[in-house]
């Protein structure tokens, strides 16, 4: 029936919104926090990496809570970015610019994550301080890692702002303004955490 076809769009879109927060936002928090152990030296980072690597049922956890949600959010996100219109040059109000940035940062993050999985997960044998240091010794890769991290965190923070509206949490204009300020603060702080780890790896 036609009605079921259309309800599917609604469900797909809401699932996209939900998976962006649970588990992807939670995962990125953990990931960046763990990376930040690099600022305490190679041994501290390697010990944490070992702990994570030795978790029971790791492949199941990785696929169910990280890879599959990311894959869905990423591929459906490409569709969203394609169907959205872009009129930021015509209407340069702040929120409309953020609307465009959300989609641009999403596409950059999607490419970045594919690259990141390939260089840090598929090719090498387990994460280690030295492995990351070797990747970052290339200035281009170092720059791309910083850009990708900042884009991912921006997409997360601004995405949470939209999530709060899509789920009817922040309803009025004041609530939406305050949440925007708080989440931009989160963007700055979490970017700092992510980039500080990269700087530490780079040495």
């Amino acid at each position: 029936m036609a009605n079921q076809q259309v309800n599917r769009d609604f469900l797909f879109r809401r699932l996209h919104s939900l998976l962006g927060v649970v588990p992807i936002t939670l995962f990125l928090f953990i990931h960046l926090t763990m990376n930040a152990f690099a600022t305490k030296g190679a041994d501290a980072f390697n010990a944490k990496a070992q702990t994570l690597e030795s978790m029971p049922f790791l492949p199941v956890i990785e696929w169910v809570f990280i890879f599959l949600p990311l894959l869905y959010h990423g591929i459906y996100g490409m569709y969203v970015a394609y169907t959205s219109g872009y009129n930021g040059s015509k209407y340069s109000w702040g929120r409309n610019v953020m609307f465009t940035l959300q989609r641009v940062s999403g596409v950059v993050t999607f490419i970045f994550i594919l690259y990141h999985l390939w260089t840090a997960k598929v090719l090498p044998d387990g994460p280690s301080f030295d492995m990351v240091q070797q990747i970052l010794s290339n200035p281009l890769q170092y720059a791309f890692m910083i850009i990708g991290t900042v884009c991912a965190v921006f997409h997360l923070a601004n995405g949470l702002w939209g999530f709060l509206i899509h789920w009817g949490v922040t309803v009025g204009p004041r609530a939406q303004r305050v949440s925007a300020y708080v989440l931009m603060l989160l963007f700055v702080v979490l970017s700092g955490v992510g980039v500080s780890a990269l700087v530490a790896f780079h040495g």
Partner: protein
Amino acid sequence: MSQKEIHVIIERQDRQDAQPYTEEFRIPYRPNMNVIACLMEIQRNPRNSSGKDVAPVAWESNCLEEICGACMMVINGKPRQACSALVDQLEQPIRLKPARTFPVVRDLVIDRSRMFKALQRVKAWVPIDGTYDLGAGPRMAERDRQWAYELSKCFTCGACVEACPNVNERTKFIGPFAISQVRLFNTHPTGEMHKEDRFEALMGEGGIHECGNSQNCVQVCPKGIPLTTSIAAMNRAVNRHALSSWLKR
């Protein structure tokens, strides 16, 4: 500000399937003119700035006091009502374009049918007709009436639809105004009796999930309707409806 002439640049189109072209006009200045007065002047003396006699520019307008919505067009890059666009407050040259999110019928005249179809889909009315007198309906709390009245000011002009990036040829988004109308009629004590039908419509094709929170709608709405508040409130209500109706199956 006193000037002798008003310089108007209009994006014109002779037929629905014709190529658009721009034409410039110079109009004698009178105090307190609005854009409609400029268009009336062109109608009286349809001669472009190079002195050639041309077909008068077609446009739509009715009330001339910003309550009917008919004269919405893109004026200096922003969708707004031509009647409340005062020449003294506009930068010159004044650039007029039809709102191209809609099919252009001729010159500045657009076909808003999609908006009325959207209102039909979301059942934006209070059904009271029956075979016998149904009597007085339930009363509405004054507190609610006050903000619901603001939503009732929507005159389907289409400015929000024109400014929304997610209303385009790749989506079927019904537009911000229709979501706000659902909130209005679901707040009405009698309209509320059909609220589930309206939620279902908002979950349907081109429904509320197509909103990407660019919030252009609330910027351009000539009546200052809190469209983004309506959308967020309906997001909450529709999600709740979706979940609870699924759990009841």
